[in-house]
């Protein structure tokens, strides 16, 4: 295994990644996840009351955490330019609305996004995130995935969203998944790496916990739930498990890592439920766009509408915000 792997894992876990056997032993030794109590806790946290100032704070926080995403075969340069403008200034009528964290696009559109950002020339800055590694299936040769990542970073991507090889994971080839994440992290260079676990395909919460740890051991900067192309995508209980993983990782290594639920989060109300989980499961130090993101396309419009509702006392409806 490459040298970087052991550095990434840190001294606390130096030898668990030394070979496939030890890695499997370690992952299988993680505490199990009991679905009944997990889902019960996720449901109970979803009933916290967030209103008035607390809601406004939450809406702005959630807005600043959005990775505004378009991942369609039909994406065009024009759509990406619109997305950049929307991300920089989500609500032109209310310029105090915070910008989003990033736009999330396919690698071939990164140059378009970089140029659009340069042209915009505002003091505001958002990141460019790009889904590489043969997104969304991840079914390509490693060299192809690495080339995909390199081209995105060279074109100006600040963040790389990679998918893990779920086939290898489900077959128990944890070492293969690990090696691939390490290689991609290396190829991504200065860009932060988001590791998409595609939790909807992992089937059990135990697997979600194992995959989270695998990604953290391999040096992933973020663990991310989903591509958005598989159902179920992000769910509250799954996000709880991932938040527990980064919390435990920090306790053991001192390193803080980030979490990104993606797919299916469409309303401000949904987003706020995730923020409550962030606060109460991982801790308030994760309540920041550096440590928590939402992968979403339609969430931003609801956040804008709910923000106006909070400020103006009445609801305007979808025709008063832009659709792209």
């Amino acid at each position: 295994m490459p040298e970087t792997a052991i550095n990434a894992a840190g001294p606390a876990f130096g030898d668990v990644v030394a070979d496939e056997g030890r890695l499997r032993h370690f992952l299988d030794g993680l505490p199990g996840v009991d679905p009944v109590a997990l889902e019960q806790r996720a449901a109970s946290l979803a009933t916290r009351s967030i209103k008035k100032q607390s809601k406004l704070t939450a809406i702005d926080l959630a807005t600043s955490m959005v990775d505004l995403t378009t991942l369609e075969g039909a994406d065009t340069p024009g759509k990406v330019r619109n997305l950049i403008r929307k991300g920089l200034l989500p609500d032109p009528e209310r310029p105090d609305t915070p910008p989003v964290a990033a736009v999330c696009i396919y690698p071939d559109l990164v140059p378009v996004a970089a140029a659009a950002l340069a042209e915009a020339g505002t003091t505001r800055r958002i990141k460019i995130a790009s889904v590489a590694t043969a997104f969304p299936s991840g079914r390509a040769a490693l060299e192809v995935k690495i080339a995909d990542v390199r081209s995105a970073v060279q074109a100006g991507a600040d963040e790389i969203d990679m998918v893990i090889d779920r086939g290898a994971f489900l077959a128990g080839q944890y070492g293969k998944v690990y090696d691939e994440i390490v290689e991609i992290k290396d190829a991504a260079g200065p860009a932060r790496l988001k590791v998409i676990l595609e939790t909807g395909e992992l089937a059990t919460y135990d697997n979600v916990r194992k995959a989270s740890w695998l990604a953290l051991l391999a040096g992933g900067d973020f663990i991310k739930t989903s591509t958005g192309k598989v159902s179920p995508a992000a769910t509250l209980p799954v996000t709880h498990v991932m938040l527990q993983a980064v919390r435990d990782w920090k306790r053991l290594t001192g390193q803080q890592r980030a979490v990104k639920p993606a797919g299916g989060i469409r309303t401000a109300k949904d987003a706020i439920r995730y923020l409550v989980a962030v606060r109460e499961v991982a801790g308030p130090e994760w309540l920041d766009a550096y440590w928590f993101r939402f992968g979403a396309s339609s969430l931003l419009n609801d956040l804008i509408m709910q923000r106006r509702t909070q400020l103006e006392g009445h609801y305007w409806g979808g025709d008063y915000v832009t659709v792209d």
Partner: protein
Amino acid sequence: MSPSTESSSIDWEYAPAPESEAIGRVKDRYLPFIDGKFIEGGGDDLVTVNPGRDEPLSTVSTVDEADLDNAVRAARRAYDGPWSKLSGAERGKYLFRIARGVAERSRELAVLESLDNGKPIKETRDFDIPTVAQHFFYHAGWADKLGHLGFGPDPRPLGVAGQVIPWNFPLLMAAWKIAPALAAGNTVVIKPAETTPLSALVLAEIIADADLPPGVVNVVTGAGDIGAALVRHPGLDKVAFTGSTAVGKQIQRTLAGTGRRLTLELGGKGANIVFADAAIDQAVEGIVNGIFFNSGQVCCAGSRLLVQEPIAEELITRLIERTETLRVGDPLDKNTDVGAINSRDQWNKITELTDAGIDEGAQVWRSSCPLPDKGFFVSPTIFTGATQTMRIAREEIFGPVLSVITFRTPDEALAKANNTPYGLSAGVWTEKGSRAMAMAARLQAGVIWDNTWNKFDPAAPFGGYQESGFGREGGPAGLAGYLDTDDEAVIK
């Protein structure tokens, strides 16, 4: 780009969200319900206190012995008259009507119960009141199927049941007692606790609205003396009591030799046993639920945590972090996780036992969550380094106080868990099914939870061993406590 320059995590607080007190429709004064009517009792009025604010909430007229006598006579007339002659299907209709009445007034009942008891609205709204309705629905379904219970083809009701219930789940305990008694064809005289009489009296309104024949259900109010007078009343055929072990023993003495049936559901000191292979985050949830639900004022609370040594330190760290996130405060605020202690007396008792634990040398940890200035609140408290000899490990504290004991082997865990005069509940946390089953078979407790805690269902019997009482409530076993049969019981 580095987190130190880019990140500044914010201090984000939730908005207070108190339910409106007006929803509870608290009246200035409540009357006992005897023979189908709300009547002035012959006793002195008592003042019921809102424990969340330490302020008077309402006054309740109480009964004297003459009223009690009238109530028992009314119940007898109702039993001899219409009630015991009704078909099971007809009785079931009344029970369904009560269940729907509870469901229709659930919001009002949730607020009222929270005001009178001090428990958080999220517990009354999401657990107590829905479970109350479920108990009536469940038993309504049995009313016309008693011949299929396993007590022979035609089991008979006992007659008049005297029931005394506690203050920790005022309406839920009323439902646990009234629903099976009526389903089996008995009539009822029930006395709610002195500190929490209101919801039972609103239930009496619902029962009156359901057009039950007068006297089938009578709600008598008063303190312990009225409870004592009720259970020794010669007009009863059955006594059911939920409350403290000390009072339970007195009742058993009183009834000895009278031939009257008795069920007792008394105290507990439940052991929550966590093995090293447990799903640790969910075990933490279960521990929190086991001891901080209703501020630990639960007879089946998991008040003793037995942790296997290899994970003791890690588990306690996680447990303390988790407990620190609990929000203690205004019971009517829907963000509140832990509400008020029911009364000043109970608050004093908890404080006394906690002080005893400190004196005996256990290490105490208390949540830093700020407590309201007024009302009876206790910070969630965890004792580590507790030993079996300490009072905190032996006596029922009935508050949000957990004592943590460690063990090394399953046998040691069993020995410690069973080493209590009680035996109401226990729990086992392990990912290994065979271990859970082996432990459950040897734990002396009426309810054993596997990888969970505080799961209740009207179909599941509940009750204890040893000083936790005898008899069961819920399910066919609970109905058996209200039925007589010449045939040998198939299920008991």
